[in-house]
């Protein structure tokens, strides 16, 4: 940590920001600890309510996943629609190792992470030549191909029927009888993602990613190895997404292609949550998840029976509305309000 603090002292302030103020990593870690404490208290408060615990587990997991996406998508400005691939790699790795060789999911997090990272670097190498919308198209196509392959190679994935993971409750198997440990597990993963995000943001990589985001040509002219920076950001992001996939597989104890690779329910969900919360901000994706996931549960519970797809209908409308009127998400809007408030107070 001290090493990163030293780097921070030498690194330039984040470019393109209206205020030169940069939060120190230590302050950021303090905030994350506070978030952990609040959510921990929430889990304790609702520990007897499996319905709420389920929503919390999903919220923390998707907050974590959107934060992981945000590392390359938000900080680096590379709008990947293909993060479902890395998510699925994590899920299938853990599911296979557990199903065939009874390897503890805790251990298989490591190969899940490494595989997701490797695949991410391999497929991003060519696709990072593309910019903006074209990168998004290529990653969307990648996700669809992964879906085809997952359905086709059924020895590895169980094909369209999926894989049901055996219920052997126990800490070593990451299989629990109650939802409480899962909520704690997902909270732990969220904290890991936030800490990694904070560390990346305050590291050389983070500044380079932001420079590439703002102006790729200028970043290259300034001597930044753009491809390398993008690949590093993608690797970190994909590794975390892979872990998320593993945890999701163990939470559901079931994996099949649509659950892991649905473009609307998984791949785009990460972006959507990040956008609603605030793309490129550290806490935006978490804020987005806090809004979106409970909203989705509510919509599915109230409208799902009558109108199939009503939850995605409303999410689609929200995407359009936020891209038109709240580009910087709720966190960005909050920041803007706060600056305006302080300015009026000073006058």
């Amino acid at each position, binding site marked *: 940590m001290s090493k990163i603090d030293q780097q921070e002292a030498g690194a330039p302030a984040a470019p393109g920001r209206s205020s030169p103020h940069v939060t120190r990593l230590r302050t950021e870690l303090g905030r994350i600890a506070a978030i952990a404490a609040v959510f921990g208290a929430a889990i304790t408060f609702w520990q007897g309510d499996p319905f709420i615990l389920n929503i919390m587990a999903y919220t923390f997991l998707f907050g974590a996943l959107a934060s992981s996406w945000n590392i390359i998508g938000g900080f680096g400005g590379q709008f990947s629609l293909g993060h479902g691939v890395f998510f699925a790699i994590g899920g299938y790795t853990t599911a296979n190792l557990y199903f065939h060789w009874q390897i503890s999911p805790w251990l298989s997090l490591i190969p899940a992470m490494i595989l997701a990272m490797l695949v991410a670097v391999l497929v991003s190498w060519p696709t990072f030549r593309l910019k903006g919308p074209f990168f998004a198209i290529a990653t969307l*196509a990648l996700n669809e191909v992964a879906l*085809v392959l997952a359905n086709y190679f059924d020895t590895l994935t169980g094909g369209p029927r999926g894989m049901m993971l055996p219920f052997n409750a126990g800490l070593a198997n990451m299989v629990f009888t109650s939802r409480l440990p899962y909520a704690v597990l997902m909270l732990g993963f969220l904290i890991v993602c936030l800490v990694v995000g904070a560390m990346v943001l305050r590291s050389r990589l983070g500044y380079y990613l932001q420079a590439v985001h703002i102006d790729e040509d200028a970043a290259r002219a300034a001597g930044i190895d753009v491809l390398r920076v993008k690949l590093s950001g993608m690797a970190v992001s994909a590794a975390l997404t892979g872990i998320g996939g593993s945890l999701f597989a163990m939470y559901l104890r079931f994996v099949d292609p649509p659950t892991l690779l649905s473009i609307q329910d998984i791949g785009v969900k990460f972006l959507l949550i990040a956008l609603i919360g605030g793309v490129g901000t550290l806490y935006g994706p978490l804020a987005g998840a806090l809004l979106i996931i409970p909203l989705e549960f509510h919509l599915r519970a109230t409208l799902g029976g009558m109108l*199939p797809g009503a939850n995605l*209908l409303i999410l689609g*409308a929200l995407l359009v*509305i936020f891209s*038109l009127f709240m580009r910087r998400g709720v966190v960005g809007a909050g920041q803007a309000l706060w600056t305006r408030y302080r300015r009026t107070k000073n006058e």
Partner: protein
Amino acid sequence: MLSFLNIVIVGLLLGGIYGLVSMGLNLIFGVIRIVNFSQGELVMLGMYGAYLSWFFLGLDPYLSSIIVVPLLFLLGVVLQRFILQPLQNEPFMQIFATFGLLMFFQNLVLAITGGTGYSVRSAASSAVITMGEINVSLPRLIVLIAVIVVALGLNWFVTHTMPGKAVRAVTQDRRSARLMGINVELAFMLTFGAGAALAGLAGVMLAPIYTLSPQIGGNFILAAFAVVVLGGLGSVWGAFFGGFIIGLVEAFAGYYFDPALKHAIWFLIFIIVLIVRPGGLFGIAGAEEMGLREQD
């Protein structure tokens, strides 16, 4: 030899479908430089439009294009005016907004229909033309003819008419076009409208071939992207020939490998083209980056 010829015919017919679906996407991309993720859903809306006119008015699906195509033109104009025009210089937000539209339209139709599949009957639906040993289904042949007509018509429009020339001027240099007195915003609205109308036309033409489902747009959009990237971004003939290339690849891959893997094979070609010639086979080198160039 016969099976080879058969595969070529199947591929060309499929290529006609992909080409027709890609025309509107390519027009919108080429002129406005917006990648419209919801294009497949506009095709889907066109198909349901054909179904509705058939169900309520008893119109043959091909005739229903006189209703569906203008309606989609209007929808396109409205989308461009109220959603995409405010996002003109925000390429990332365009991705979000058009993807939001994709989810919105798809799930709107899902919510209304409850996911029941519909099919539209045309007089031509089951007609088959037999040429020697080869059978060609008439609706697919009509699509093939439609794509040729649309490509020729579009090409004539942009090279020989004043509005078409205005559209090309806007494509090449927005600022100079504005200085020449061209209303750029109007040109964009009409272009998006035309792109949506072409999607509607494709939907009408495809309605007798496919079973209608809200998710059907997803079958076309990736193929259309592959066609557009392969053929050359923003080139009319690029989309035309790109469609046939993808169609032939799919037909041959389906026959010699496995139909289940056709997407994977497209993607391979897609990636190779992106690496070797990012501008596409008929496009201008560097066009893949133009989407981000600020022109105003």
